């Protein structure tokens, strides 16, 4: 049998039919899954909120941890009964193909939506539970796992002919040693299944998925089996629904399995991104995604054993609640990494009030207490900001600007008799930015350009120029403290400059219509000739931002501006930019 299976596998690989290694099921065989979610209620039933989104969460776990290939997991959202039946038929055909080749297969069915004891409520139709079961049992799959998250879904289970295998010992297998059907229902045939606005999910699906991610790995072998997942979901669903107004919800498990092994459902140890809660941590651990704050996992973590959670790559806030305080930290899970939760980077949210006896200087004690209170407030603020980020930033700065002294333009001005100073000048800058990514800010900035006045000594005429610039900019930065208290950045900007020159020119006038030969007209009417220029400009800058407060801080920046803003009739341009040294204040908002 094994030889035949191996030859079959070799033949299938040559034909390109082998499931990719990343899609290898934890317990062998090729898997197909059908996930059905319907928020739409039937007559007299209110629409659900999270049934359809729960199918997406289940899809993510099946494809990332369960070994199911993306193209073998089908999601149906608010289908009709006919559409659901058609989808089951498609699965039957694919599984039948495998069966005809002697290959093993498994089928996973998940439903989240409205139901009654006699059937699933699907839009404006109903699929009787007995018909659904019959169709699933008729599939030629080696193993079928059915998960129902609906009211009175326990009625799917048959009171007779169903038994629970008594020996669920685990072993690592490449081939299914267990066949048959297993059904997990979110509640028994009399109970209602509930959704939680806090969890953005149904209670049962949430806890069941947390179990599959690793919370249910009772024996810490890196895999979560059917019974482990069930036990986890049962305990946590019962505990959380017991506190609701609707009442307790008992998850049921029915198995009609032939075999000796517990069925591994997921393999958290092989996930691409993992969070490990160390053995020494004790308390309730809450893991939430950022920035949505969706609950991904909630564990009652005892001391002594570490817990491994398989999570999608992304940003998370982890809150640890212990008897005396609550601490929270933000972290980022990256691909192909296992991150160990380090409580040293999790600030405390609450400080337990302690009884102290004041000895010695009471004022010193009061100062200490005030410092402690400030520290507590700061820690509380930082914890409240955990997972949050800057949004809008406003910067106002001034400093010194060094300009280009010996450009052809300036040399020409001097050649024609004008003289002036090239001393450093005062500069101003302002910008408004928006942080669109953790390390990227986009914004608009204004800054002024070089302004000079040159004087022609023997005539006291002057020639001057000045300019302003408006740029769009992008800032890439790296934070070195909590709440971006210390930021190193580089910034690039491009935009337009508006500059002008003014020359005291002599008007050519002869006010005397008939000027006598002896008359020496000394009238010199002056006019100011202004020439304006609109030209591109840009800058590159680097600096630091220091934010001691939540909303305000400082920055220092070195900026090189390229602004060839003005030119003369000889085609010579003058760069009004140069090197600027800026210092200023910075204000920000938080998301």
């Amino acid at each position, binding site marked *: 049998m094994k030889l035949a299976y191996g030859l079959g596998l070799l033949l299938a690989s040559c034909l390109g039919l082998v499931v990719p290694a990343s899609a290898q099921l934890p317990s062998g065989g090729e898997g197909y899954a059908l996930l059905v979610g319907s928020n739409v209620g039937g007559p007299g039933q209110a629409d659900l909120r999270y049934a359809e989104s729960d199918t997406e969460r289940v899809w993510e776990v099946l494809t990332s941890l369960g070994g199911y290939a993306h193209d073998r997991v089908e999601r149906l959202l608010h289908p009709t009964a006919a559409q659901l039946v058609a989808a089951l038929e498609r699965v039957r055909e694919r599984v039948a193909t495998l069966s005809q080749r002697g290959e093993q297969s498994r089928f996973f069915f998940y439903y989240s939506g409205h139901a009654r004891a006699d059937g699933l409520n699907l839009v404006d139709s109903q699929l009787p539970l007995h018909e659904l079961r019959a169709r699933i049992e008729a599939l030629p799959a080696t193993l079928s796992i059915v998960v129902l998250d609906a009211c009175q879904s326990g009625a799917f289970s048959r009171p007779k002919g169903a038994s629970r295998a008594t020996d669920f010992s685990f072993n690592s297998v490449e081939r299914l040693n267990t066949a048959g059907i297993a059904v997990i229902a979110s509640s028994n045939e009399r109970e209602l299944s509930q959704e939680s606005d806090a969890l953005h999910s149904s209670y049962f699906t949430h806890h069941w998925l947390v179990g599959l991610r690793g919370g249910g790995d009772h024996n810490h072998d890196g895999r979560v089996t059917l019974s482990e997942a069930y036990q986890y979901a049962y305990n946590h669903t019962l505990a959380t629904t017991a506190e609701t107004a609707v009442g307790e919800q008992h998850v049921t498990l029915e198995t009609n399995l032939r075999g000796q092994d517990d069925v591994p459902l997921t393999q958290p140890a092989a996930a691409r991104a993992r969070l490990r809660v160390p053995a020494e941590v004790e308390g309730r651990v809450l893991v939430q995604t950022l920035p949505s704050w969706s609950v991904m996992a909630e564990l009652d973590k005892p001391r002594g054993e570490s817990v491994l959670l398989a999570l999608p790559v992304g940003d998370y806030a982890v809150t640890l609640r212990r008897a005396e305080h609550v601490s929270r930290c933000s972290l980022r899970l990256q691909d192909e990494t296992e991150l160990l939760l380090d409580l040293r980077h999790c600030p405390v949210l609450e400080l337990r009030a302690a009884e102290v006896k004041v000895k010695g200087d009471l004022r010193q004690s009061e100062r200490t207490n005030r410092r402690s209170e400030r520290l507590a407030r700061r820690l509380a603020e930082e914890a409240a900001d955990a997972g949050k980020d800057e949004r809008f930033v406003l910067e106002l700065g001034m400093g010194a600007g060094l300009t280009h002294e010996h450009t*052809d333009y300036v*040399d*020409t*001005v001097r*050649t*024609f*008799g004008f003289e002036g100073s090239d001393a450093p000048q005062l500069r101003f800058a302002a910008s408004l930015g928006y942080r669109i990514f953790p390390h990227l800010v986009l914004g608009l900035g204004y800054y002024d350009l070089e302004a000079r006045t040159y004087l*022609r000594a*023997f*005539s006291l*005429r002057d*020639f001057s120029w000045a300019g302003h610039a408006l740029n769009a900019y992008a800032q890439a930065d790296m934070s070195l403290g909590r709440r971006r208290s210390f930021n190193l950045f580089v910034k690039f900007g491009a935009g337009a400059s508006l500059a002008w*020159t003014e*020359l005291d*020119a*002599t008007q*050519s006038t*002869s006010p005397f219509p008939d000027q006598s030969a002896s008359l020496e*007209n000394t009238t*010199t009417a002056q006019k100011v*000739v202004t*020439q304006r220029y609109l030209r591109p400009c840009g800058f590159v800058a680097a600096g630091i931002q220091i934010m001691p407060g939540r909303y305000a801080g400082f920055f220092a920046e070195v900026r090189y501006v390229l602004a060839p803003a003005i030119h*003369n*009739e*000889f*085609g*010579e341009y003058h760069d009004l930019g140069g090197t600027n040294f800026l210092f200023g204040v910075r204000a920000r908002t938080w998301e």
Partner: protein
Amino acid sequence: MRRAMSTWHLCIALSGLAACGSADLIRDPALERWCGSQPCEWQVEGSVQRVGTWHTDDYALQLLSDDARIWQDNGTATSESSRCFEFGMVAQIDRDTRVFLELDFLADGSVEFSQRLPPSRWERLTFRITAPTWYRGVRFSLRKDGPGRAILAELSALNAPGTCTAPPIELHDRPARATCSTDGARASASPCRGFGWSAISWPTSRARTPRQ
């Protein structure tokens, strides 16, 4: 003798400096004042026109016709006040264009000094000319001889006492009682012959051409 004359020239120059300072001997050297189409402070002969330079409203004078000439008299400059002229000029003179700077120290129509100006592309030229040991008034002229482009943006002449090293311009046909450069003594009727000019400094900066 030469040493005594140099000292004497220095005394004259210093006295001249004390008396007259270093004011420009040419009025409106930058050609800023215009009376219609002609510069107010210059007499014009031939065809000229006002043109822009590095700025459309910072004017220069273009000598258009082949015999164009401009001149300006300074009746107050004398050998006691100004013995060394330091000229500054900004002009555009094409390579084959012949333009002469001429000085007429008695304003009698006879030119005692004539020097062809070098080609230039809006560079600042400075040079010194040692004035005659005796003169009363001077006419500064700029004359174009033949075809070609010649545009003058600035012509200044400052009194620069004690800086000229070349021998003075010989002034012929001095009036009676005017001193001669050869003896420095009381005037005689002897004609004074020859003329000279000091070194001209040529700049090395790049040429500039106004945009057409």
